[in-house]
């Protein structure tokens, strides 16, 4: 009854007419899909061994299967999750040691289903290429040509037959472009119809999936956004539409292309964090609060700790910044050497360092300067923001101290030590003011794990800071801790949080040492909100450093265009699989742009079609290629494949345009057609010749392999006998 009358009536329309299903099947699409599936799925599980980067993605699949938390800086979780889905469907239990390229898979690894999803994505790219060129308004002939080129491109075949993410990325890139084209084509006829909404939403979702697979997907997203913005700008100029109408159009686009991708992207992380609930080897990089939210690991240790730090609490203090390694504030019996190697001197007091391992010497006791006892009162007196405290090192009962002496490795900062009274008129300066950094978001009571605190030295207003420099041998290679004289703004290295915590009970030092050595056990668990976990995880993923910058098969962007490089993926006892792209197209849409400008012989609709095709295909190629010149990470040939896919789309478009617009006479046109056919046949032939490299199915003799090595720079591994 709430629905308005006419709409309700409309919905009941199906009662008045018979239900008719009209099947409208484009056999081209069906055939292309079939061939695509055949080429990608044929002997899919054949190299039953770890091939190239499978060794890298495989370990994450195992982590998903075992639901162990991991951190991978290479990309957002959606791509990994898709691969893991394949493993889940195939019943993979995650038990395989991914340590070596070329290792044989054990029987419990469902190779076929693990490789199925990338292969499907690669296969579906073929009909999608057809659809895209068709939706761009070009002929079926050009569309089939584009699809066939995608089909026979060796590098795309190789890449999609393995447990790798490029084919998935290409699939979503093409899907985003295709659905945007469908959307903009239905814009002319039926705006706000269900199919209009469907394609618009699908554009947003596909963009998000592309970004979620690999960060480089963001370039395609930006391209689609740019084209959408240009179209929207035209829409604003359309004076036949009312203002309200224009506003509705703009709002719908904003929601679908800006809001939905963000939500879907967050959803990936939500599922990711939901799946990975157990602690694992990468825990250490995350903050204590994050670790505590995982099962096992720190959560097990900290379960049952008292929440509020009180005077007399025994705590371990972890540095929040955690660079170069996560570590805890530490001290030990040894003192700073009297004279450093470079001739400078020290206070010769007890060393204070940051130590990356759990140790009994990491325990500190929070002491009220006004009292002598080191136990917690009953009821406990919580420490608040701004309170003055002393920190007593548990094992040596010396007080954390800093003074006007240059630190061992950072001479412009103060040395931090545990104070020993040498009776040399150097008084103890061991009072610290507690500064809870995140007191706005939390309370101003010092809490375990949750509170991020700074220790401000009362006498000198220096701040306790991890400088990150490893000390020489006398400091056992532990990290240097200094008093930063003037801290400018917030920096993670000056912020600490309590990780392990218990209330001290023992009066005597011996007793206390025993207590410190016993594991901390008490109760209650705390969880972070999803957004907090998301932002931390995303930040860590973006900032985590990959260490090695050199690889045997790495290449530069210029090599890609000139086909100077290849990657040896896998070496069978007799054969090898290797990726190499076959041909390059040299697009020249500029020529016609110039023609348009100067001569105006193109009709308006043809020009628009051409401009859109140019923007999407050439633009797609450019945005997926050019940014790599600015990147400093190690690059491989496969980074070029998304750009290549767009380039292949562009080729038939250019050819059709040339034959349709530039060839004046029939004779020219048929001559050009013959040329294209001949070229295409040679492309097929080349592709077939290189097939052994693509599938690695046939054993070739070294001489045959050498014959396939057309360029000296191709890395084709030949087994020596």
């Amino acid at each position, binding site marked *: 009854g709430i629905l308005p009358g006419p709409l309700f009536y409309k919905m009941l329309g199906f009662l008045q007419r018979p239900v008719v299903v009209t099947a409208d099947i484009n056999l081209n699409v069906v055939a292309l899909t079939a061939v695509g599936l055949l080429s990608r799925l044929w002997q899919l599980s054949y190299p039953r061994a770890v091939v190239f980067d499978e060794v890298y993605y495989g370990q994450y699949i195992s982590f998903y299967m075992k639901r162990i938390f991991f951190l991978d800086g290479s990309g957002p979780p959606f791509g990994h999750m898709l691969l893991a889905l394949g493993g889940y469907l195939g019943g993979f239990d995650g038990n395989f040691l991914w340590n070596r390229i070329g290792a044989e898979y054990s029987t419990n690894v469902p190779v076929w289903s693990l490789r199925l999803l990338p292969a499907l994505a690669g296969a579906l790219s073929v009909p999608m290429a057809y659809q895209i060129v068709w939706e761009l308004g070009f002929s079926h002939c050009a569309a089939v040509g584009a699809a066939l080129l995608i089909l026979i491109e060796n590098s795309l075949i190789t890449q999609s037959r393995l447990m790798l993410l490029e084919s998935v990325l290409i699939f979503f890139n093409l899907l985003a472009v295709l659905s945007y084209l469908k959307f903009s084509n239905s814009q002319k006829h039926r705006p706000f119809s269900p199919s209009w909404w469907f394609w618009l939403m699908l554009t947003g979702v596909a963009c998000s999936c592309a970004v979620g697979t690999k960060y480089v997907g963001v370039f395609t997203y930006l391209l689609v956004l740019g084209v959408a913005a240009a179209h929207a700008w035209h829409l*604003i100029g359309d004076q036949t539409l009312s203002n309200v109408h224009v506003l509705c159009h703009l709002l719908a686009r904003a929601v679908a292309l800006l809001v939905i991708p963000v939500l879907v992207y967050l959803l990936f992380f939500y599922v990711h964090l939901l799946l990975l609930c157990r602690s694992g080897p990468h825990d250490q990089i995350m903050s204590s609060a994050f670790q505590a939210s995982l099962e096992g690991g720190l959560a097990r240790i900290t379960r049952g700790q008292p929440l509020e730090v009180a005077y007399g609490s025994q705590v371990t203090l972890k540095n929040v910044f955690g660079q170069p390694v996560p570590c805890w504030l530490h001290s030990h019996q040894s003192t700073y050497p009297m004279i450093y190697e470079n001739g400078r001197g020290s206070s010769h007091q007890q060393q204070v360092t940051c130590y990356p391992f759990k140790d009994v010497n990491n325990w500190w006791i929070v002491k009220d300067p006004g009292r002598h006892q080191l136990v917690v009162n009953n009821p406990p007196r919580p420490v608040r923001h701004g309170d003055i405290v002393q920190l007593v090192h548990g094992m040596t009962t010396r007080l954390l101290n800093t003074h006007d002496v240059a630190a061992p490795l950072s*001479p412009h900062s103060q040395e931090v030590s545990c104070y020993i009274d040498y009776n040399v008129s150097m008084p103890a300066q061991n009072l610290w003011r507690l500064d809870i950094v995140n007191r706005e978001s939390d309370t101003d009571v010092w809490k375990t794990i949750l509170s991020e605190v700074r220790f401000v030295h009362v006498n000198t207003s220096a701040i306790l800071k991890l400088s990150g420099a490893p000390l020489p041998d006398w400091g056992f290679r532990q990290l240097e801790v200094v008093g930063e004289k003037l801290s400018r703004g917030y920096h993670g290295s000056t912020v600490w949080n309590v990780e392990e915590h218990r209330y001290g009970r023992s009066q005597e030092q011996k007793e206390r040492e025993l207590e410190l050595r016993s594991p901390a056990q008490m109760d209650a668990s705390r969880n972070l909100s999803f957004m907090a976990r998301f932002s931390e995880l995303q930040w860590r993923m973006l900032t985590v450093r990959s260490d090695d910058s050199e690889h045997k098969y790495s290449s530069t962007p210029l090599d890609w265009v000139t086909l100077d490089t290849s990657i040896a993926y896998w070496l069978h006892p007799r054969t090898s699989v290797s990726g190499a792209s076959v041909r390059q197209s040299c697009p020249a849409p500029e020529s016609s742009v110039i023609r348009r400008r100067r001569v105006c012989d193109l009709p308006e609709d043809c020009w628009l079609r051409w401009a859109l095709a140019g923007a999407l295909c050439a633009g797609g190629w450019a945005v997926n290629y050019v940014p790599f010149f600015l990147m*400093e990470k190690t690059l491989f040939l496969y980074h070029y494949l998304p750009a290549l896919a767009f380039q292949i789309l562009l080729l038939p478009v250019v050819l059709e345009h040339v034959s349709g617009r530039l060839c004046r006479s029939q004779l020219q046109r048929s001559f050009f057609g013959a040329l294209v056919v001949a070229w295409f046949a040679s492309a097929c032939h080349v592709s077939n010749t290189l097939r052994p490299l693509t599938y690695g199915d046939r054993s070739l003799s070294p001489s045959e392999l050498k014959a396939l090595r057309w360029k000296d720079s191709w890395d084709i591994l030949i087994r020596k006998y």
Partner: protein
Amino acid sequence: PPPSGPGGDRTPLPAQRPGQGTTFPRAPRCRRRELHFPGHPEPPLGDFLAGRLARPSVLAGRRAILRRGRMPPAVGGGLAGWDETHFGKMGSYYINHTFFFDVHPPLGKMLIGLAGYLSGYDGTFLFQKPGDKYEHHSYLGMRGFCAFLGALLIPFAYLTVLELSQSLPAALLTAALLTFDTGCLTLSQYILLDPILMFFIMAAMLSMVKYNSCANRPFSAPWWIWLSLTGVNLAGALGVKFVGLFIILQVGWNTLSDLWHLFGDLNLSMVTVGKHLTARVLCLIVLPLALYTATYAVHFMVLNKSGPGDGFFSSAFQARLSGNNLHNASIPERECLLSFTKVEGQKGFLGCCTSSRRRRLPADLAYGSVITVKSARMAVTTYLHKDYNNLWIIKKHNTNSDPLDPSLPVEFVRHGDVIRLEHKETSRNLHSHYHEAPLTRKHYQVTGYGINGTGDSNDFWRIEVVNRKFGNRIKVLRSRIRLIHLVTGCVLGSSGKVLPKWGWEQLEVTCTPYLKETLNSIWNVEDHINPKLPNISLDVLQPSFPEIMLEAHMVMIRGNSGLKPKDNEFTSKPWHWPINYQGLRFSGINDTDFRVYLLGNPVVWWLNLLSIALYLLSGSIFAVAVQRGARLPAEVEGLSQVLLQGGGQLLWGWMIHYFPFFLMGRILYFHHYFPAMLFSSMLTGLLWDTLLRLCAWSLASFSLAGHVHVLGILSLLLGIAYSFYLFHPLAYGMVGPLAQDPRSGWNPGTFEATARTPACVQELPGDSQLWSQSLDPPSCGGRCLRSLRSSATCQDHALGAYPEFKPLERAMALL
């Protein structure tokens, strides 16, 4: 004392032999801090008064006064401030013809040098550290030159905005913004590159705008003049700093869109279009390139004496400098005697001392020749100094006969030959095997092996010439060679990592299995002894001018990208700049010092920031309105044109001078923002004038409407002038308690105007960070220890938060 400049700290390092001292001597640089500003009491009264008088109270004749206003260059007194130590020193180098290396192109420093030369500066001042007294040295010419160029920014901005908006109030507002900005003022008062750079940028912008307005009279005399002036200024901007590239992008973009319009104009014949294109190519590409190249030609011509910059360049390059210090008897003999091979890698550039004492070398390598890969005991390392340990004998891999036997014919080494390199001192062979290298685990270890030249097959190396333009023979200096290990197939290279103590802190040499061609794996033969071969003169080897240019640019780019901030170091971030988050300390540390601090006038800068937001808002409203086809009244139409086109150009200029810094990996400083700030100030002037006119137009029915515009502009002008009165001590210097000091009523939380370099770090900010970073932090601790009892340590010098005078609070209240 040795100059503390680029190579100054490096060249004097004595070449140590392994086993003799291990660490490089560290200069007790901290001591300088005590010398800083020894209680400089007051600015010279005259200067200070002149600075104060410079505040114009009358608008008329402002430019004339202002030019003088910036002229009193000695506000900082006779003290060298901030990066003056660099650019002043480089000016001196030009006067002394001493070769040096800097990461910036030479034009700016050449102009400084010229100004100094013309004003009678003799190039003898040492420019060792900020705060040195100039004493009797004549520095006013150089400062005056920079200040003059800095003052010219104001009329340029005035003219540009006048041209873009055709409105006098907008131009006046812009001029006022720049005049009363303390940042621009401070920056133009010293011997720095920035005023010169900004001058060329503004001049290029002005001439571009002028020539755009001549577009309706193509090929007329003013059109040609402005077009070629644009080209000249572009060359100037790029010749001062590489940041000049941004204005080139802007002009290029403008030219392209201009040409595109001409191309689409069907009324023009193809010939006319061709003429347009040729004119632009000539004036905007050929002319600037020629000028830019000319600056380098002059640079290399003037600097013909060997100096601190030699070590950065290849040996062939060094061969052309009149290396007079080689004949200098004070250099230890062993240092420069014989060394031939040196890494062309990043580190290898440094420290190799100047060209060989032997002026004549045999040209082609033959068997039995003695060459070098530098060795320290058994671990083969690339040692940065010339040494007997660098000598290697080339031998054939299969024979052990002495090739120097006079009975045998001379046999030249050719590309692809398999050779053995025998270390001359220890008679061990260069050797590699399947063991991981000490630091780079993925590479193979390289060692010396065998006794008296007999080793095994792991000693065989294939020698390959990379650029085979001299045929198959291997030439001294000119051939770039690779050494490929025969058994493992790896390439001898330097990983660039420093070995620990046991390796005498030399660079690691490895055999890398990755055959990619990088500079790290390329070697050349730098010296060569073979009694059987005739010697040729090194003059033959002199590189041609294009090669020199190319090499100089490679070195500069490498130097620039080498300016990376250290981990954990607090650096200036681009987003700090427009909000005036943190400035730069020019001089002065303690409350008794005379302190100058580079910080923009907050009122001006925040107004600029607000204006950009306002511009985006109003611009998009107008753009949408035009796109929707709304009919605007003629007056508003004109204003919207000014806003969209003129403002668009300025906004684009601001963006292109600002956003690229977000992508830069190198270390950044506050003063990098100033070119962008010029554009945003011009945008502010244009925007407020337009908005006030719009206001006046929309209130046209009221009687006072006509005054809205005038009043608005006047109040803005007065407000800005008053803010300058509040903040002028930043630029003209101040004395008084620091912010932390309770005596000053300053709240340090508002502005984190702390100084950039902590106490005890060498006081050379700016691009000088290259030098202070590459050296170890100065050792204050020694003093700290000595003064431990009295506790008077380096830490006492910690810097206070800085311009901490009460006026800012008043400004806040005003805002």
